[in-house]
């Protein structure tokens, strides 16, 4: 069975149609890149998968392990293993990163009927994970993302992913705002999480990220649906030719 099946998905935001019959299948263990011009619906797809309110599904379905997740709240989806690495991670004043991580992890485990992590177990997990991503203890004590640079916020997203161990990770333009060194750290973090049991959707505008996170498959999105699918070489082709072909064709 496929990990994720998106069937003929139509989505509106504020009465405006963004996704227009998008169909896509992600296999277990697959890393799929989704590329496309601005406004093609990439971020909308990410939000719809995570369950953001105000995104109205008018037609179609999204199946995770063969079951529809559209009626599930964001936290229920997270407990089923859906993780969204935000393009713009929000700052959460007053909530220490450690508290946030522990609350999230234990809430997911509780929903899944698993026991809570003990404090020493949890501390060890966070220490090891943060060290690999170059996140300091000082950052862990600070409120979530408050005063973090763009690169620090993105690294924090990947740290959360490593701690929560999702089955389906959606990375929404994780490369935006990263310099080359940060890009490498973040990509290494993502690559360490590649596993036959975990699928990833890597959303990006540029081919650059895909040099570091090499995808199994590349889908091109334009005007709210998949217009082309190919191997990793498709990304290079797009980098050379741009998206004009697809924008023109769909218009």
């Amino acid at each position, binding site marked *: 069975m496929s990990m994720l099946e998106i069937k003929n998905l139509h989505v509106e935001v504020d009465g405006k149609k963004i996704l227009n019959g998008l169909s896509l299948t992600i296999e277990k263990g697959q890393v799929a890149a989704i590329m496309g011009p601005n406004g093609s619906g990439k971020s909308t797809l990410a939000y719809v998968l*995570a369950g953001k*309110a105000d995104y109205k599904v008018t037609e179609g379905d999204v199946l995770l392990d063969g079951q529809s997740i559209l009626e599930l709240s964001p*936290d229920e989806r*997270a407990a089923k293993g859906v993780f969204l690495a935000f393009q713009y991670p929000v700052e*959460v*004043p*007053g909530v220490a990163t450690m508290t946030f991580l522990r609350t999230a992890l234990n809430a997911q485990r509780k*929903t899944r009927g698993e026991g809570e992590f003990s404090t020493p177990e949890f501390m060890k997990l966070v220490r090891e994970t943060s060290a690999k991503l170059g996140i300091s203890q000082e950052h862990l004590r600070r*409120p979530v993302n408050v005063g973090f640079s763009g690169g620090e916020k993105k690294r924090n997203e990947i740290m959360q992913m490593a701690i929560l161990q999702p089955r389906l990770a959606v990375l929404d333009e994780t490369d935006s705002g990263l310099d080359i060194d940060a890009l490498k750290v973040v990509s290494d973090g993502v690559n360490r999480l590649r596993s036959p049991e975990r699928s990833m959707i890597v959303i990006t505008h540029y081919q650059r990220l895909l040099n570091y996170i090499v995808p199994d498959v590349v889908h091109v999105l334009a005007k709210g649906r998949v217009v082309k699918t190919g191997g990793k070489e498709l990304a290079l082709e797009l980098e050379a030719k741009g998206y004009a072909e697809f924008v023109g064709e769909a218009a």
Partner: protein
Amino acid sequence: MNVELRTAKTEAEQALSSAYQDARERLPGRGDVAELREDAFRRFEASGLPHRRVEEWKYTDLRALMRTAYPLAAPPDASTRAGARDAGAIFSSVDRQRLIFVDGAFAPDLSDLSAEQGLSIGSLAEALAKSDPLVTAHVGKTFATDDVAVALNTALMGDGAVIRIAAGTVLRRPIHLIFTASSERPQASYVRSLIVIEKGAKATIVESHEHAGAQVNSALELVVGDGAHVDYIKTAQGSGLQISSLLASIGARATFNTFAFAAGAELVRNQAFLRFAGEGTNAGIGGVSLLRGKDHVDNTLLIEHAAAHCQSRERFRAVLDDEAHSVFQGKIVVKPHAQKTDAKMLTRALLLSETAEAYNKPELEIFADDVVCGHGATAGALDPGLKFYLMARGIPAAEAEALLIQAFIGETIEEIAHEGLREALMIASLKWLGARK
């Protein structure tokens, strides 16, 4: 011809007048004190209870809210006093010196009167009766105001604490003034306290009000000496009407922090009249109000920068549910010679329901030209973007909201220096949050 339009006295105003006439002979203090009472009473007679057309009371219309004036509380009997034995439990985890007042009267048998070097504690009623020089020197003189609630307090003050902390004394533990009123019968109490913290002394003062259906008008005069360090925390819980006035005069190079906390309090008016009388003082004035049902909590400040080089920070937050009302009025006055004043005021309200109302009114009156002053006010619902972020990580909606509210409150409570008091207030906040439906 000048005709002052004055509506007929309300029932409550009439009752207050006769309460004073009946009690004046019994109230402690003669001579100057009696004169002080008379003056204050005349101020009340001239203006009546403050109402919505009095700017400072615009959002807490006392004339409308106080339909009747309850009779002055009689001295509490033995069983009432026994009921107050565990009062002030909000800070039960903190090693502190408790002073308990039941129905407005000092209860020395329930209080901890252990002596500490440089600390003296007494009752206001006794101090007034024997014309204690400390009381004569300070009571009614800390901050001159025409405020009618203060005037009523002065006219009718019965008992309270008189505390002197001698120069250079560093108190080992917080002093906890606990005011509690029983619910046996409707009654009113007028308590007045005086705390003089002399030069270079350091003290943490906590004042808690826990009342059941009473009308309580309390006032505290704080005289803060040069270089002294005072942290003052006030908590309000319970039903009935509770008006508290803080009148403070703060010396030079002092550190002065106040925090007003209200949770599960029906009708509270906290008013602070603060004057920076000496240069180089740092002050942090803060508070958190947690309101639900028809709770109403009003924090009104008048802060006078009367000396140069002082810094003040006002930070107030309110969380409102159901049909609750919160009021914040903060007025900062910078006198002409108070150059290099640095004053910032920020008030934020978090509205959890469509029917809750938050009134935020910051005001600046600046008469000096070399100052940094600013104010900001926000009111809004929980940020849906933040809530989604938390939920996307697996935190259920109710828990996500609780975490965000806790964070909103916590950012302000964190400013409290004393760890035990800080934690106790956080726990009280969580308890309030836990009762959220």
